[in-house]
């Protein structure tokens, strides 16, 4: 009996799929084309904090200023470094050695489009997020009143605040608005893939094009890695071995699917050797792809979009070459001089 049990679901599944195809029913539903990944024209900003050059300039100075940390040793750029694709290249963030379930530093590139920030979505805007690293004990370990007092004591900041907001008053709202404004200006360079989407057939290799087909077809990466940023800004348990509940710790326990769920990261401008995943558990794209092929740990919370599949070595290479075509290179940054 045992030896006959295996073919049943296979055959039934195959026949059911064939039958559904004849009946015109498809769970795949939507057709994806390269135009679905076309870059937007402008950069969005909320009506409560419209993007201006002066605010972005102030925000840039604040972003690189280590005096926003209690011991003057850490700035936003310490962990979101321009030469590290606006992350830190580390498995775990600096100072998190004794933090339970520390998570890898996400990039701040293309954050203007985010609707939920942090791996668990606990911040709903860049303005709200900007406070968190400043006040987190193992990061900048400061408090907002002290930050304000310190910035007020730096005369060189007065004209920057005045230019950005009309007067030199320093407060939490202005600090976070300026930081958010600068972060909104960090947009990925045009990548070879973008030129291909725009019509230049020679912009990416044939292997990359094959990878795109796999990405949107057989491998169904596009189920979550969609839009021009290759993320759905949503949360999924992808079956990783972890004790970290992720978004599950932020939503009611009845929402089973959010346990061990983390935000889908963008695939643009990835550091070639990782680290990847929320905990930096993987160091190469080949390993990442193999994880998705197997589908990870089966549990009640595992995303319904996790559907195991199998690729050949050549197909994996195509997929990797496609992801590499999403790299527009490092952003050119003119480092600000620190006000005195």
């Amino acid at each position, binding site marked *: 009996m045992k030896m006959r049990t295996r073919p049943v679901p296979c055959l039934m599944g195959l026949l059911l799929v064939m039958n559904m195809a004849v009946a015109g029913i498809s769970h795949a539903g*939507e057709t994806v084309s390269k135009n679905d990944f076309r870059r937007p024209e402008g950069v969005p900003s909320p009506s409560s904090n419209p993007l201006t050059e002066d605010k972005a300039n102030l925000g840039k100075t604040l972003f690189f200023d280590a005096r926003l940390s209690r011991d003057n040793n850490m700035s936003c750029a310490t962990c979101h470094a321009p030469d590290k694709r606006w992350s830190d290249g580390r498995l775990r963030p600096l100072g998190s050695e004794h933090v339970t379930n520390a998570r890898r530093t996400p990039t701040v590139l293309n954050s203007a489009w985010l609707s939920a920030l942090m791996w668990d979505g606990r911040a709903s805007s860049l303005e709200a997020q900007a406070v968190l690293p400043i006040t987190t004990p193992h990061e900048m370990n400061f408090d907002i009143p002290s930050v304000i007092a310190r910035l007020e004591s730096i005369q060189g900041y007065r004209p920057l605040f005045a230019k950005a907001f009309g007067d030199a008053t320093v407060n939490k709202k202005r600090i976070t608005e300026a930081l958010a404004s600068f972060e909104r200006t960090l947009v990925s360079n045009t990548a070879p893939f973008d030129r291909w989407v725009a019509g230049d057939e020679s912009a990416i290799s044939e292997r990359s094009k094959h990878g795109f087909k796999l990405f949107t077809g057989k491998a169904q990466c596009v189920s979550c890695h969609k839009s021009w940023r290759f993320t759905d*800004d949503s949360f999924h348990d992808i079956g990783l071995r972890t004790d970290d509940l992720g978004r599950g710790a932020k939503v*009611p326990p009845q929402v089973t699917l959010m346990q061990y769920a983390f935000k889908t990261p963008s695939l643009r401008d990835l550091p070639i050797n990782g680290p990847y995943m929320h905990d930096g558990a993987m160091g190469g794209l080949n390993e990442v792809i193999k994880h998705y092929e197997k589908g990870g740990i089966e549990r009640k919370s595992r995303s319904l979009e996790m559907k195991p599949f199998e690729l050949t070595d050549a197909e994996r290479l195509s997929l990797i070459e496609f992801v590499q075509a999403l790299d527009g290179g490092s952003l050119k940054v003119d480092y600000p001089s620190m006000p005195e």
Partner: protein
Amino acid sequence: MRKAGIKGVAMKPILGRSGRVAVNAHKTEALHATHLLQLQSWMVTLMAAMLLIVCSTAYSEDVHDTKNHAAKPEASEKVYPSRAVQGVVTPLAAGATLHKMTLSHHELEAWSFVPKRKDRIEIENRSNITHALYVTYPDGTVVNLEIQIPGDVVSWTVPDDAEGEYIFRCWIHPVIRANMTISE
């Protein structure tokens, strides 16, 4: 500051995908297609059984177990809370209206109705991804509308004493958001 609480959520095991579709289909226009699919499934089962009898080739579990992912249960067959609490099986109140909305991709499509107290709002997931909608009441109360696989319909009945802004969002996809004002 308002404190969020969970109201009206029941934990009850339900069947897998076919069962879930059947639970909801009686209220959707997909009724015919669902029945057709069920009929086809029975036919397929019969055909598969006949094929197995004819083709009694032995399969080695050692060879197939590691690669045969289809043999494993799908995540959609796992246990999720029942949607009964939200009114799907409760008759519509006298004088109340049934409104329909759709989820497409990552957004709730625009609606034109103005809901009133006791009305019911049904939301059909026409995307190809799973959603988990919830409603935040003006007092901060949060009501889950449960996991919604593609094709599923969930519903929310406007409370008898509703007044103010009710916000629909998705736990999985925070970008999904709809504000609905209820006034008597």
